[in-house]
């Protein structure tokens, strides 16, 4: 009669996802922010070759928003009814003042997700988090051995640091951990061990293979680090993708809620549709969140809908990781297909057909 419960989207059943979609659609129809990402810093203690937003921890951070600026933005979004907030980086715990931001924002009552590499989490961090528990902590694990961590992150010891961080959180009673990995040619061979590492701690593991160009500098090695479509298909048998929802038809360019009811704010205060799409941006410090949000929605609504990447045009559409943001990263256009996505979508499609036929 009166109550419907909904789990965290990452943990939810299909029924719960329906409620989440319903609320997201309501927010979209009203132009209300429902879900936001605050990228608190670009700084990170690891040097992953494929990362799109990282700078050394020693780098100047004068442009990063100060705690009071993040808190003020959070207050506005809370007043506008925003429910979901992800705190991300860079590495969030490379900010010495992380808890000066987290604790005041926590009291505003968001559904909070933390995204971290886990390596800077010590017993004290875990203790503070357990007294102010977030709804989820996503820890990205880059390999299942020191040798692979050295190749991917530039730090062999980061492997043990990450495991210790995970174990500190578990020991503190935090039951909201989820493991993620970004797969490249450097750690692909350990995908099974990564899955086992998560299982040994009774945790879930999801993977992402899509590598994004660094926001501030061109990474010439990125393409050679990326998995082949065949490898993507193979690894999906072992570790599920972080985003597994089938692509749906949409009348607008963006099929997701980006710049409709969700957004990302960069460390410098740029409001962007999502973390993959810094090409459309309005700085929150220039005009305040409300005006920036309105401007962002207007700008994103000008993006043309793709003519080729649509149901009825492409038979593999439902299996395709394509979206305007990813298309722009791959092709420089918001509307063009990408050979990589086409290949993966077709492979997924025929794999499914094969399974259906075998049954």
């Amino acid at each position: 009669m009166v109550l419907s419960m909904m789990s965290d989207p990452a943990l939810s059943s299909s029924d719960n996802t329906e409620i989440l979609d319903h609320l997201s659609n309501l927010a979209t129809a009203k132009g209300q922010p429902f879900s936001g990402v605050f990228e608190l810093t670009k700084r990170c203690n690891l040097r992953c070759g494929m990362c799109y937003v990282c700078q050394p921890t020693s780098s100047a951070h004068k442009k990063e928003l100060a705690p009071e600026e993040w808190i003020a933005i959070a207050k506005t979004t809370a007043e506008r009814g925003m429910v979901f907030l992800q705190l991300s980086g860079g590495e969030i715990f490379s900010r010495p003042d992380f808890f000066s931001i987290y604790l005041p924002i926590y009291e505003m009552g968001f559904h909070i997700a933390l995204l971290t590499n886990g390596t800077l989490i010590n017993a004290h961090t875990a203790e503070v988090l357990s007294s102010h528990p977030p709804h989820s902590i996503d820890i990205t694990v880059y390999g299942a051995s020191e040798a692979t961590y050295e190749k991917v992150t530039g730090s062999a010891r980061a492997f043990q640091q990450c495991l210790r961080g995970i174990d500190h959180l578990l020991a503190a009673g935090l039951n909201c951990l989820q493991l993620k990995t970004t797969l490249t040619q450097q750690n692909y061979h350990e995908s099974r061990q990564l899955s086992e590492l998560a299982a040994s701690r009774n945790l879930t593991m999801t993977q992402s293979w899509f590598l994004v160009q660094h926001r501030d500098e061109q990474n010439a090695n990125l393409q050679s680090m990326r998995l082949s479509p065949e490898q993507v298909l193979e690894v999906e048998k072992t570790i599920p993708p972080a985003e597994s929802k089938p692509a749906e038809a949409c009348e607008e360019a963006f099929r997701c809620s980006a710049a409709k009811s969700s957004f990302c704010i960069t460390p410098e205060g740029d409001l962007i549709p999502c973390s993959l799409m810094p090409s459309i941006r309005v700085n929150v410090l220039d005009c305040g969140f409300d005006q920036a949000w309105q401007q962002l929605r207007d700008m994103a609504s000008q993006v043309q809908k793709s003519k080729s990447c649509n149901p009825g045009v492409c038979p593999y559409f439902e299996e395709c990781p394509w979206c305007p943001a990813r298309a722009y990263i791959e092709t420089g256009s918001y509307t063009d297909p990408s050979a990589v996505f086409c290949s993966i979508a077709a492979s997924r499609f025929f794999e499914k057909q094969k399974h259906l036929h075998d049954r």
Partner: protein
Amino acid sequence: MKAKSGFTLRHISDEAVLVPFGQNVLHFQGIISLNETGKFIWEKLQNEIGMAQLAREVCNEFDVSYDQALQSVSQFVSELQRIGVVNDE
């Protein structure tokens, strides 16, 4: 009975959502979507109230009989108690 502290009420368009925070998160990591009646009951539960009185309040506000209201309110409150949102009587 009374609603526990540590839940924020947010509005998505015209619908209400309860978000747990603090130690509540260790037991319930989801959010709770409330319809109009649910929101009404939640607001009444901000102060100590008995089941019969709560049913009467629902009866006065909405077009339902007392018996209907009592049955629905009981179900709703027991579900809230199960997930730790409302203190037991």
